[in-house]
């Protein structure tokens, strides 16, 4: 079986995905918050796409790292949406977008602290129970630590283990964080529970200053990130891989080419693995 290579659904290329002229992903990923409670034109488009492709979902506003309670009304709506759209994997960010009952819609860095590990893990468990499914938690890009007691890998490991959740491994984010915070990306990958990875994100980023990269999803994937991806997939079992591109869209062939690149890398790694286990 071929590895599933998908792309993040954007309104800019919805029609193309329906017509399948240049983009031919195996699945799509959508942010529920961008489609929930919507009728009319966009609901029609969403239906056309979800009828055509298997769907994974990448949440934005669950705010699993918030100090306060989960938003139970929202959770109910979300569960309904995931069921209606036959979503196979649901993922969210290891971050928070809300405090003091106010959303700010940006992914903020949870302080890497002991109590935060316990707290976030408790909330993830609760969210998993409410949604009736496991959540794949994504390692996010962060631009500053906040009074950290441990490093990112320890924090991430702690949460995944205590919450008994899955991992959405964003390889580009590992690269970005390793660059911005001066650590070794491969060593970071080695420390992760790779058997818990539900799927992988790949994306481009932007170097805004000589010593700072921002995770924009607005550029093509760069070679060092492909190499980190190759390193990663050689160390783990086969999972789906998703290309994220959120703006500054190139010609669609270029996006398809990026998906092809990802496929070539995974084929080398995972065909070999399959042959070994036969």
């Amino acid at each position, binding site marked *: 079986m071929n590895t599933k290579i998908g792309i993040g659904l954007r309104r800019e290329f919805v029609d193309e995905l329906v017509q399948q002229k240049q983009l031919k992903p195996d699945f799509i990923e959508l942010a529920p*918050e*961008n489609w*929930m*409670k*919507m*009728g*009319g*034109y*966009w*609901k*029609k488009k969403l239906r056309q796409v979800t009828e055509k492709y298997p769907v994974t979902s990448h949440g*934005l*506003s*669950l705010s699993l*790292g*918030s*100090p306060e309670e989960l*938003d139970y009304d*929202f959770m109910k709506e979300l569960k309904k949406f995931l069921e209606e759209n036959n979503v196979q994997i649901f993922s969210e960010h290891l971050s*928070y977008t*809300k*405090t*003091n*009952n*106010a*959303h*700010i*819609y*940006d992914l*903020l*860095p*949870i*302080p890497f*602290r002991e*109590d*935060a590990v*316990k*707290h976030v893990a*408790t909330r993830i468990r609760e969210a998993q129970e409410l949604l009736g499914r496991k959540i794949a938690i994504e390692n996010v890009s*962060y*631009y*500053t*630590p*906040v*009074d*950290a007691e441990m490093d990112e890998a320890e924090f991430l490991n702690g949460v995944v283990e205590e919450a008994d959740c899955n991992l959405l491994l964003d390889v580009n984010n590992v690269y970005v964080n390793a660059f*911005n915070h001066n650590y070794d990306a491969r060593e970071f990958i080695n420390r992760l529970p790779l058997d818990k990875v539900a799927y992988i994100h790949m994306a481009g980023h932007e170097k*805004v*200053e000589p010593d*700072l990269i*921002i995770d924009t999803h607005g550029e093509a994937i760069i070679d060092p990130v492909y190499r980190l991806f190759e390193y990663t997939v050689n160390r783990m079992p086969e999972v789906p891989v998703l290309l994220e591109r959120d703006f500054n869209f190139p010609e669609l062939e270029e996006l398809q080419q990026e998906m092809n690149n990802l496929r070539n890398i995974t084929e080398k790694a995972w065909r070999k693995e399959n042959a070994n286990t036969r």
Partner: protein
Amino acid sequence: MRTLDNYTEKLQHRMTEYCRTGSPNFLPGTNGKGMKHYRRLSFNIFNNTLEQAYPITQEFLNEKEWMELVDGFFSGHDCQTPLLWQMPYELYTYVEENDLKLKEKYPFLPELIYFEWLEIEVHTMEDIDITAEYIPDKHFEGTVPLVNPEHRLVQLNYPLHLKPIKEAIQLPGQYFVLIFRDPEEGNVHFINLSVVFVFALEQLSQQDLTINELAIMISEQFGVEDTGEIKKHLKGFFEDLFGQQAVLGYKPKK
């Protein structure tokens, strides 16, 4: 059961406060450069989303005024919706409910924002299934017109649906607008209405009425004697709405 220490909670509150206000807020173990990016990125999310939702307002205000509005909203209003696309509606309620200097200068500002939101609202409102049986045709003799349920009927104090903003604000008055979504393409359309037709649509939304019955009600309400003339106008009105898909057809009168 509480699992988070007050200290960590305070760190998180301070972080969001800093993003929202930009005012220095001591946070141990952070780097200033990264913090600034969070402030910039989160502000941009608000600014870009609001710019997209309110292009007329943004264009009308000068840059300083627009920034003042966005900044005041971002720092002063606690956004409640988890859905970013619904966040711009909260700008409307914020402007409506607060004493803003901008409102003294531009008393029509809340209405302008509301008007722009209406287009988004009608474009995205959840689908309304029509349970009644109807015939998609314009035979309105003795039948009940079926109004496209995906609509809003509103009253404006400025003709924002008819004129460019700078002209519209010179023409305060009473304006009625039917805003609806066509069922095929999902596009939003605006129709200017006279008060008589607003009355007719409001009556129809409450009960099934034929054009004859509506004509009698209008004659009583507005003191017009010639019901034949009213009927003629109503028929033309509903035929026109049918042509634009603001009316989807007719139901037989039970």
